[in-house]
């Protein structure tokens, strides 16, 4: 199973876990497995059409999946998937 790194805003859905395991041969399958174990998480990552939301970046190891094969990017058990939300800030 691949390792998925969960950012602070989504840890409410993973029982506070910063790192979880997920099964799947592609990024899309990994997200589906995440949803099975942590209901509600996929909605936070993907829009109604199933595409990754524009304020979320997903990296397979150190590469942005947008420059690989997006949700069809292959995943190996040794891979680390990073979910990286845009942080705009703005509070003093």
């Amino acid at each position: 199973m691949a390792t998925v790194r969960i950012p602070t805003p989504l840890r409410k859905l993973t029982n506070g876990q910063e790192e979880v395991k997920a099964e799947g041969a592609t990024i899309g399958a990994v997200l589906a497995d995440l949803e099975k174990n942590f209901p509600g998480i996929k909605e936070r990552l993907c829009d109604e059409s199933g595409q990754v939301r524009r304020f979320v970046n997903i990296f397979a190891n150190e590469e942005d999946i947008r420059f690989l094969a997006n949700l069809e990017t292959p995943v190996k058990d040794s891979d680390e998937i990073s979910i990286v939300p845009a942080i705009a800030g703005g509070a003093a």
Partner: protein
Amino acid sequence: MTPELGDYERRRYARQLALPGWDVAAQVRLADATVCILGATPEAAATALALAGAGVGTLVIDGGLADVPARVAALTTLCAVRVGAADAAASLWRCAPGADALVEAGAGAAARAALDDWARGARVPWVIAVSDGWDAQVAVLDQRVAGAPCARCVWPAPDEGRAESDAPAAPVAAWAGALAALEVVKLLGQGGSAAHARLMLLSGLAGDVRMLRLRRDPACPAHGDGDGDGARAGAA
């Protein structure tokens, strides 16, 4: 002509001058530089103090940072300080044309977009330093490098996710600010940074740092040849 430092500066920066890869010329480049820091945040405060301590000659800071007199007093003992308006990032853009490097430290999505446009056009290096809860992000975008990604290449719509952000743990914000300052020191003093086009992620809970690669999006509209949807247009 060989750049010079006075006796006081040589004493003040003696340990920094002894660093491998650093010399008098690099220190003089810092002393001659102006850095604009956007954001009235803990990240911005940490960046300003670290840059002033390293020897940057002039800082342009957000008016919100200047609300703490002791902070301004500390900075002005180390460098020249210019203050922008308290609530409008737009006023800082007027200062930006004189800037040799920029730091966006949680100034908000609109400020980041405007800064992105300006930095790209002026070919000025900039660093983004933001934090959220236990996590921090620092990105280095050196617009002097051919083919450099811009912020829009990486975050096409950062404002859509603003409700997701939480208040940061104070040391996490300080880490982001100090790292941003380090990157600016290298960008100005050494002419570049090995962290260019990298996103450094701190997981404060796990206690680790990851380095992710940032790429120019060939379809990014900011570069004049995109259709507005970027790389996501081809999403499976």
